[in-house]
């Protein structure tokens, strides 16, 4: 019984943790959208900043991956 409650809590927590991935999605979309609007204003400067955009995507995506990892840990490792 106690184990079942723990498992339920873990599953609920996993589901809640997955909402963090939505935040990462918003963040990545924001980064790329702003890059695109800037690039369309000044296309000549866009080429040099693509690497910066990817770094930004990586940073914001990593946080979403962290929340996914937390979900996985709750599902399989706790």
């Amino acid at each position, binding site marked *: 019984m106690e184990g079942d409650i723990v498992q339920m809590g873990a599953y609920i927590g996993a589901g809640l943790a997955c909402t963090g991935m939505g935040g990462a999605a918003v963040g990545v979309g924001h980064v790329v959208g702003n890059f695109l609007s800037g690039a369309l204003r000044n296309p000549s400067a866009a080429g040099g900043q693509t*690497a910066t955009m990817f*770094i930004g995507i990586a940073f914001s995506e*990593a946080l979403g*991956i962290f929340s996914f*990892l937390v979900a996985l840990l709750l599902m399989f490792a706790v």
Partner: protein
Amino acid sequence: MATETHSTEAAAEGSSLVFHPMDQFIVKPLFGDGPVGMFTITNVTLWMALSVVAILLLLVVGTSRRAIVPSRSQSIAELAYGFVYKMVEDVAGKDGLRYFPYIMTLFMFILMANMLGLIPMAFTTTSHIAVTAVMAVAVFLSVTIIGFWKNGFGFLSLFWISSAPLVLRPILAIIEIISYFVRPVSHSIRLAGNMMAGHAVIKVFAAFAALLAISPFAILAITAIYALELLVAFIQAYVFAILTCVYLKDALHPHH
């Protein structure tokens, strides 16, 4: 343990929906059923060796003709070389080019491991945190050593942001130091997490495909996610390499 009962239950239930998204990451010995020791030849060995073979085929066999007008494989090899070379030069600067072979090694290994991992039934070595953590810690340690070796204690000015107001500087220094030490964590978990997430999601959709009603949708979704994973496999290798370059730049030029 809760997980044990969970997995056995799932296996026992498993008439219609069986989720084993994590089974693909199990390390198995290639020969026999013995325990996995330090030097056992496992599927990790196999797939890492295959990525070495892939790199060998692309970069050594592909360029063996040394043609002025390149063949198809040679131009891909040159493209990879030029891509990483330009990245190191742009991000880390001219003096970062000394470390170009190291970054090229990391980039090619991660790229090949990611790509080979996408072959159905393959084992993705880069989805294991142990693997990526070793690479990230190696990058972290070598970058820190390079920083102290090149700049002495001037390397610590990386944490002392002289453009900020004096009151804020100690707080910023604490934040910078924490973020500096979190680097290997995020660096390794980003790669492993991306790989694991993609493969697990594909596996979950594959389990959905067992239900007849939604199997067309599931197969369509697997195809779409597979395409996305192909992109992610490349981008994660790129991101790992470019973050290594960024850290290297911080070590070579710590003054903001």
